[in-house]
């Protein structure tokens, strides 16, 4: 897929939960080219002292517009939270590979925190042809963004006194899950995969890494897999869980 570099326009950027923003960006060609699993790279202000673009999973696409859902973490995302309608940003995408798509499967989509961002887009594609349940796990209720999916389970760590992966056996059994997608903290992905594996559930995960370029040129973003080091930006971010943890 051709990667595009565009000046794109902010059409919305609003807080949707504690420290979490949803930003809608009008593009010329990027939005239409995005598939679930892809991410985009966004500049955090012109002439900023922070030069590197920040990577974000594609959260939603409507026509020429795409959405990202992001948490304010450091200086770049803090600057991004100040973007207002009409601001122009440099946008690079679509980047990375895609989630595998299935038909006629019982699917569980598990997003931990901001991991939900790319999975919402995936769920929209999958739910036409599959029976999809979304498990959205957050630490505290105040960081819960509204997610509009057909079957939604919400897990609040603080309220349950455990992590979403701890309860996963039940969920997988109850839903007779055949395919699992997980995105979120490393431990969540790893543990979820271990349980899924025990249930014979095929699993894909979306990984994060520190990036400089986002398109394979700097070799900065590698992760270890059973097949050696892989670049998250163009050999990922989606990996078969078995390729990552064996």
């Amino acid at each position, binding site marked *: 897929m*051709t*990667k*595009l*570099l565009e000046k794109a326009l902010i059409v919305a950027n609003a807080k949707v939960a504690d420290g979490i923003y949803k930003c809608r960006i009008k593009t010329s060609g990027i939005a239409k080219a995005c598939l679930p699993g892809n991410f985009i790279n966004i*500049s955090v202000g012109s002439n900023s*002292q*922070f*030069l*590197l*673009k920040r990577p974000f999973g594609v959260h939603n696409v409507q026509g020429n517009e795409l959405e990202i859902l992001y948490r304010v973490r450091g200086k770049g995302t803090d600057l991004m939270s100040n973007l207002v309608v009409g601001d122009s940003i*440099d946008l*690079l995408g679509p980047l990375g590979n895609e989630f595998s798509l299935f038909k006629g499967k019982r699917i569980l989509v598990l997003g931990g925190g901001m991991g939900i961002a790319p999975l919402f887009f995936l769920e929209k594609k999958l739910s036409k042809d599959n029976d999809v349940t979304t498990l959205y796990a957050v630490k505290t209720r105040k960081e819960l963004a509204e997610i509009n999916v057909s079957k939604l389970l919400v897990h609040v760590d603080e309220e349950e006194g455990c992590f979403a992966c701890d309860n996963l056996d039940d969920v997988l059994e109850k839903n007779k899950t055949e395919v699992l997608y997980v995105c979120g903290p490393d431990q969540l992905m790893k543990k979820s995969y271990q349980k899924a594996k025990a249930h014979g559930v095929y699993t894909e995960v979306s990984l994060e*890494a*520190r*990036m*400089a*370029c*986002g*398109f*394979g*040129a*700097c*070799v*900065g*973003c*590698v*992760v270890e897999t059973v097949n*050696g*080091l892989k670049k998250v930006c163009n050999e990922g971010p989606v990996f078969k869980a078995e390729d990552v943890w064996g």
Partner: protein
Amino acid sequence: MKSLEVKLGKLILQNPITTASGCFGYGTDFSDFLDLDLLGAITLKSITKEPRVGNPTPRVAETPSGMMNSIGLANCGIKEFIEVKLPALTHLKKVKVIANIAGHSTEENIELAETLNSQKRVDAIELNISCPNVDAGGLAFCQDMSQLKVLLKKVRAKTDKPLIVKLAVNVNDIVNLAQTCEGEGADILSLINTVTGLEVDIENRKLFFSRGYAGLSGPAIRPIALKAVYDVSKVVKLPIIGMGGIATVEDVVKFLMVGADAVSIGMMNFVEPDISQRLVRELQNYLDSKNLGLKDLTLN
């Protein structure tokens, strides 16, 4: 339209804009963003004899107006380079291809130079003796001048392609180093490699990079790079490819004025993947609008 052609000894570039090693992959990573054949030259990622996995992660950090890297010369090795990477560039007719070698020993560099010498698509060989991110080779080559001379002499003997030697400022005396390279048959010098620095992960109370040190690049180091090029060009006759923080056409002009004959774009390729093509266009406009030739870009 003023001519942009530059002659770096035998190496003739259609324009002085080139890309820096490690910041342009093996070239094809950028073909979505620009027409490679419009650039003066592209320098490919440093290669070694065997594939190298490179250093543990994290390998990159952002710093004010710059970045640090500790990639550790991760690369596909000379075999894949010749069988896969170079053939992907054979359709390009105008851009020159510079292969950068970074063997960990004198012997490895000799072998690499010899192997590349027979490769048609390689227009010049750049010998990287200034990588801060490896234990053997890299900057260590600059610590012992007599050993360095041997390295240069032997590599020189193995290739009749233009030989570029890439220098860094983290040496005792970059000017002396440049003179040594000139004395041992280098055709061109390129400078500067990244500047050694340190980053701290305060959350985890440890050094950010597993090797501690890493290389700083980007606009932050531009004044340091300009000084190095200026100092070296005053005492050495060899053509110089200047680099370090170039982000604008004004930066390009600054490097050319202090003595560089061509320039390389490094980390800004990551920030703005089509920057090198833009700079070719802007340099053309700069010269045309001011009615200056490349030769006029000197200090008065």
